[in-house]
């Protein structure tokens, strides 16, 4: 067993560089996810820095392959996931998905999401602890490969967001499970507005389990590299040694939970908007006004399906959430009700004019029956609901069981 002292980080890093070099000679698919093994710990580093580690199909496939293998490997007790560069992971590589759909039809996209959601499910119900080090941007799909795991470490560099409604999509990757379980109606707020959260806010609302200053991460990693147990209590106590209690900024949205609770608990998106508008009758509140503006700029269809998804997700297990989200994303890609996803990608990612033309263009034009379509089975003979991997043969922890 490799014995490594917390203090001897330099030697560790040198060895790591060496192991990275060896691995970089392998196929290009593997380069996007760097693997480092210590005695009982595996460190997976997302390595697509130019794209802010956005998840490509190859990355998702590789992660899935690794996680499946580690589950059956008695020599793996702990999996660490982190990102190279200034991002943990900026999301799924949506631009590539859109390109694939344009070339090969919507099924090409379905393939990506099916793999990604399967990975999300595996992580949510994993029999071994996953520690994600969120030292940078964590958005969309990036949240999906971290928040479901047992431990999420935020730092002063963390920036979290689920920005899908601005893109004509909806918070997927199991977000309807974890957003809906944030305190009060904070999940609706985060999911509908795409609001950015910092590390302190992530810890306060529970998206992160620990806050460790970025400077202490090498020491934390070193300490985690030598654990020989999957016991979450023990791992948590190791992380605790490097933890700090960050304070919320005075302007933090987390100090506005009362308004969020009153408004984002409403029945419909229209009700939420009018409740927000009622809040600023006769008084100025820059944050509420900005929130209203953000909602008005987002895709109306996205807002409606996102709200319903979070509401349904609140009462469902993580597996059901992912199966439903898979249905939804297939309908989004099919574009039979709205093509906002393609328009959003055009305006935000490709042309970058930041001026999407949504269709339907207004909330009131998105009827209940249009929303219903997204939650129905896809009417296509070859289409199937998402098949989740079986979990019954694994000795699941109580933590995982509670999410089923």
């Amino acid at each position, binding site marked *: 067993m490799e014995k490594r002292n917390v203090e001897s980080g330099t030697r560790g890093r040198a060895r790591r560089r060496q192991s990275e070099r060896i691995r970089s000679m392998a196929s290009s698919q593997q380069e996007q996810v760097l693997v480092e093994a210590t005695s009982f710990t595996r460190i997976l580093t997302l390595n697509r820095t130019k794209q802010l580690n956005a998840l490509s199909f190859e990355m998702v496939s590789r992660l899935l392959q690794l996680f499946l293998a580690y589950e059956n490997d008695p020599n793996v007790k702990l999996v660490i996931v982190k990102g190279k560069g200034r991002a943990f992971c900026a999301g799924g590589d949506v631009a590539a998905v859109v390109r694939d759909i344009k070339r090969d039809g919507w099924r090409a996209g379905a393939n990506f999401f099916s793999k990604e959601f399967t990975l999300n499910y595996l992580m949510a119900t994993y029999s071994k602890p996953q520690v994600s080090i969120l030292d940078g941007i964590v958005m969309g799909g990036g949240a999906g490969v971290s928040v479901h795991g047992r431990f999420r470490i935020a730092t002063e560099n963390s920036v979290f967001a689920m920005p899908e409604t601005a893109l004509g999509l909806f918070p997927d990757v199991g977000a309807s499970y974890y957003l809906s379980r944030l305190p*009060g109606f904070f999940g609706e707020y985060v999911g509908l507005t795409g609001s950015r959260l910092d590390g302190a806010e992530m810890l306060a609302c529970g998206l992160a389990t620990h806050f460790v200053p970025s400077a202490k991460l090498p020491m934390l990693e070193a300490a985690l590299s030598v654990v020989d147990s999957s016991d979450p209590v023990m791992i948590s106590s190791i992380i605790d040694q490097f933890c700090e209690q960050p304070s919320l900024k005075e302007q933090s949205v987390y100090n506005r939970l009362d308004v969020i609770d009153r408004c984002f608990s409403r029945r419909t998106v229209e009700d939420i908007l009018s409740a927000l508008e009622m809040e600023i009758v006769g008084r100025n509140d820059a944050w509420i006004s900005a929130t209203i503006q953000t909602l008005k700029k987002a895709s109306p269809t996205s807002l409606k399906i996102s709200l319903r998804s979070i509401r*349904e997700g*609140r009462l469902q297990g993580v597996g059901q959430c992912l199966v439903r989200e898979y249905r939804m994303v297939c309908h989004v890609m099919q574009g039979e009700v709205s093509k906002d996803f393609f328009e959003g990608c055009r305006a935000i990612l490709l042309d970058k004019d930041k001026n999407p033309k949504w269709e339907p263009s207004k909330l009131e034009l998105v009827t209940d029956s249009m929303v219903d379509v997204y939650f129905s089975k896809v009417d296509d003979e070859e289409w199937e609901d998402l098949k989740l991997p079986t979990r019954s043969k694994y000795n699941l922890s109580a933590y995982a069981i509670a999410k089923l």
Partner: protein
Amino acid sequence: MDRAFGRTKILTNHLLQLQLQSSASPNSSTASLSSNACLSFTPPELSETYAFDIKEMRKLVDRHHVEERDWLFGMMRQSEVFNPRERGGKVFVTPDYNQSMEQQREMTWKRIEYLRDRGVFKGWLTERSEESEMRCFACMEVMCTFDHSLAIKVGVHFFLWGGAILFFGTKQHHDKWLRDTENYLIKGCFAMTELGHGSNVRGIETVTTYDANTQEFVINTPCESAHKYWIGGAAKLNINGINQGVHAFIAQIRDANGNVCPNVRIADCGHKIGLNGVDNGRIWFDNVRVPRENLLNSVADVSADGKYLSSIKDPDQRFAAFLAPLTVGRVNIAVGAVYQSKVALAIAIRYALTRRAFSVKPYEPEVLLLDYPSHQRRLLPLVAKTYAMSFAANYLKMLYVKRSPQTNKTIHVVSSSFKATFTWNTMQILQECREACGGQGLKTENRVGQLKGEYDVTTTFEGDNNILMQQVSKALLAEYVAAQKKNKPFKGLGLEHMNKPCPVIPSQLTSTTLRCSQFQMDALCLRERDLLNRLVANISQHVAKGESKEHAFIMSFELAEDLGRAFSDRVIFQKFLEAEATLAEGSLKDVLGTLRSLYALTCVEDASFLRYGYLSVDNSAFVRREITKICSELRPHALALVSSFGIPDAFLSPIAFNWIDANSWSSVQHR
């Protein structure tokens, strides 16, 4: 000693098995062995499969406003006022029944305010449409799934007080009271029951006189038996409607500051066996004066100079018109009862799918509770009954919201019969489920046992069940007499089957026959028909001896009781068939068909079929065996069937999930 030895061996065997398992599977770890030294919890989701789409089934069972329901469920789950508690890694919301009566009442009120502030009651009184009435029903069902006190307190305010204003009042009352009631700017109650009179509304003794000089009514409690009793919300509230004979008045019982008004005395009804979150109170009126316009005058009015005016000349009809708001109460109670059954069964079935007891052979693992035919036999017929009640409840709601003067009688009879049958069924289901959960059923956090106390009241309020069932039999009797007198065929209440030839039960029953819906319908119709004939004959005999019809009916109570039950069972069965008929061929329909047979045969198993000789002793035994067979066929669907009830996890209880973790030492420390 032998037993102790055997037990040790079994336990050792469990440990050995575990070791075997862990050495066989590559993911063994020391941690898993230490945390699973003896038994481990296997979530039923991982061991059971769904043979049909549970979302589709839920749509069929809940029928309307599914999204609305989930919104409300979710809203309650997310709020601190609904007392969320974490057990076994999951959040559960149930009231803290260990709180004092005063605290429980305070919490009920806080919950109502919370829901009001988030727009839950928007339009309940000010937007009247079939759609909005159905939405109210859905919300009431969700609220009663959380807590009976919450539903009752809301129900009294909106349906009894609000309903009285709406139905008995005229435009002036609507304009003045409805919006403020909806926003809870005023809080109302409905004071009808007195110490001396409950179900017999006509017997109430409170006196109101009109003083033409001041144009005021004077309300007075003339004697102790006339003081108002069980008045929901009375102990706290400031407006009060009272119904004297056939009249309802608005009287203020508290001022804006919550002080009791002059000439009104109020007392609490005290601690109850359940429903302590509702402030039931008592009221005495000492010549309380209310202005003339406080008479709710849609049915009858008094002119300024004291003349009595009414558009309905027949006092019986006038009386019936006054009871309309009570009908919606009965609908709510009947429908609410079904949801308690769902909660209890979902908990008991889930527990039975994770709890093991006794090995059949030494060294074998213990058997899952639900794999015992006896346990299936206890719970699965109750699941079938709950499905049957759900479909019937949907019919009752539709009947109510589509009401017209022509359907008043049907609504009265069906709501009476369903209220009694559903609440009785539910009390039976709660008791069975409580026992099926063993000792865990005793813990209030596990809900089932506590529900017995909370819902016991449903068997007697808004009409005592026995009285209601007598009214059903009386109504059927009246139909019979009317049909004979006019020499016309039966029409209405589903009695058309009386016009057809009497069905015949085959002397040799087969499994195929027993599962045939035609046979099932025939059996239930035969019993209803025969009991109605017998009741008529029995009453005629008494009358022939010179007794009054009323006395004759009282003396025929046994037949009347059986007939009431026969009517209910038949109508419920019919609604089950109709729901089934809406489905296309497929797995959903197949399972529902099996459930329907189980429901029907459970009805046919009733003693009355032997008592009156509709079934031979042999056939009765055959029915019994068939029930056991159907139970074993439904066993693989048990989880899917209770999941389709759509009760979110948070509204079930810790024993329905990881009860080992929920009760572990580490959970004790974290609490």
